[in-house]
């Protein structure tokens, strides 16, 4: 009951109703997005990892208040506690039921997956093929995969963009490109 009172009056998950735009948006924030528990778990994992690392350092837990591990320990513990509040709020709130596969489709639709794969490939290939070829390939394949119409025009645009990037970064600003 104490926790309910605290949550009711502090309502730390408050959407700041006095400043919010409209009731519909308030409802959106109150109703958890399907899969939100997975994000909360992800944050637990990340923060847990940092807490584990920080415990190995001298800090407040070891009695050294100004140690290098003090602030990491304090902050990671606070984040874990706040994340726990979010998980409680999610469990109490209205949830759309969705299985894991549908959650993945909801978060990562086809176009998003394609772009992520292309970006990762770009980063991996840039060390081997260097900037000009990799960028040209990425720009052209990226544009065509997002809209299959007029591939030749997109190749010309990709070449133009590459030329502009080389002019701006390499020639004018003399920035070292990957």
């Amino acid at each position, binding site marked *: 009951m104490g926790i309910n009172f605290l949550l*009711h*009056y502090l309502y*730390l*998950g*408050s959407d*700041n*109703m*006095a*400043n919010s*735009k409209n009731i519909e948006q308030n409802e959106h*924030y109150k109703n958890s*997005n399907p899969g939100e528990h997975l994000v909360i778990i*992800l*944050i637990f994992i*990340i*923060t847990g990892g*940092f807490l584990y*690392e*920080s415990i190995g350092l001298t800090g407040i837990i070891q009695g050294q*208040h*100004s140690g*290098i*591990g*003090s*602030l*990491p320990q304090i*902050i*990671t513990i*606070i*984040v874990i506690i*706040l*994340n726990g509040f*979010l998980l409680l*709020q999610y469990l109490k709130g209205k949830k759309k039921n969705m299985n894991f596969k549908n959650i993945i489709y909801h*978060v990562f*639709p086809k*176009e*998003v997956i394609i*772009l*992520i794969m292309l*970006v990762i490939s*770009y*980063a991996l290939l*840039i*060390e081997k093929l260097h900037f000009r070829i990799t960028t040209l390939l*990425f*720009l052209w394949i*990226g*544009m065509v995969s*997002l*809209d299959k119409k007029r591939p030749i025009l*997109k190749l010309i*645009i*990709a070449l133009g*963009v590459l030329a502009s*990037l080389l002019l701006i*970064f390499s020639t004018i600003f*003399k*920035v070292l490109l*990957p």
Partner: protein
Amino acid sequence: MTAIEGFLAVITNIHLIFLAAAGVFVGIYVGAIPGLSGTMAISLLISFTYGWEVMPAMAAMIGIFTGAVYGGSRSAILLNIPGAPSAIATSFDGYPLARLGEGGIAMGLSVTQSVIGEFFSIVVLIIAAPIVTKLAIHFTAQDYFLLGVMGLLLVGSLSLGSFVKAIVTAFLGIIIGMVGLDPYTGQARLTFGSYTMQSGISFIVVMIGMFGLSEALLQLKQNIQPVKQQVNKIAPGLKQIKENLPLTIRCSIIGTLIGALPGTGGDIAALIAYDHAKRTIKKPSRPFGEGAYEGVIAPETANNAAIGGAFIPMLTLGIPGDSGTAILIGALLIHGIRPGPMLMGQQPEFFGMIVGCLIMSNVFLYIFGFTGIKVFSKIVEIPKAIIIPIIVTLSIIGSYCISNNISDIYFMIAFGIFGYILRIYNFPLSPMILGVILSPIIELNLRRGIDLTSGHNIFEFFTTMFTQSISLILLLVIASLLFTNTKLWDILKIKLDKNRSYKKS
């Protein structure tokens, strides 16, 4: 030579005028490109200008600095990708304005307010430099710590949605900012044994990933369609400027004071000013966060006002007010000039010359700030299939340029995907960026403050806050920030509004 003579020598020198103009023009477009920053441009310019005399070098660098702070707002407004941390607050209402087709108007407002804010801060620099510096040197470690925490809570309270989610992301940002080598002891921490992570994670990489790549992914998911922008009327009318003059003056004061504090700059100034506008403007043109003009006026006035403010500790104490002035100090040292109280006493003409460069840059900001708006506005009308791969490419180049390290690209991609997931579930990203930026200020001042207490303990560090006037004021501000995000405050506000409307009727 006196300060006035130094000032006149600069504004009558065609070569310096040209360099200031060129610097502003380049700075605007550098700042506007996601992935480049004014700080980066000034750093590059140091090597170009090594063989120049000091004043031509300063004219060019001040020009770039001035232009880039404004320029960052262009991509913030049009693409929701701030070109600089000082433009984060501008995106809150600037981007919604662009979605409404008023991106041109937003950019026009941004130019005018930036110019007004900077002129105000230059006047303060001239008149009050010694007074403002005296206030700044009274700030203790506790005060800086509280200022950092206040900045985080502010951005958390400004974010739409859950305040708790905003604090979670802010604190995650602080953790990320601590990855690498400890600045005191040089010991590696939070690196998970990785040599790559020992060099730390740059906030620019985090910003590019979270605002650049994640925005590109989100636009794909949400299938956001291009919106045609109104660009026939860009410059705000005199009536609009007059109506918003009280807000402009208050935000100029905020920007100047925050800029004058060493280590804080346009980013914090802009956020504080935005929050101030949100709390004080009862009838905005639209609700804040939905394209309120006041939501662009406030941060843009403050972030450029912070420029003049940042020069106050730089010139009078030799302490940088922000990252840009930190590099300018480096440039001055390379040219054999050491800023500080000795310089002000022995070479007062130098102070006049810097003021002259600032004023010239500001004039050119007004002239060049309106250039390219129509062209830039067309950017948002480009089909997604073309603009998204370009944004990603710029993000990759921008991440790599910071330290020519390929691992920064991988970090950028990781933060981009993480940021995209967070945005889907309404975790705001601005607090995380600010957490990374403020992490050194918060940690160094916490540890320094603890070491300065007699018992070397954290409890004494916190209890001494209640005995120092500046700390007490900041604690009250933080307490009010926390309180206004509770349901109790919502209930109180509704009751107060009911009472007011009852009394009126």
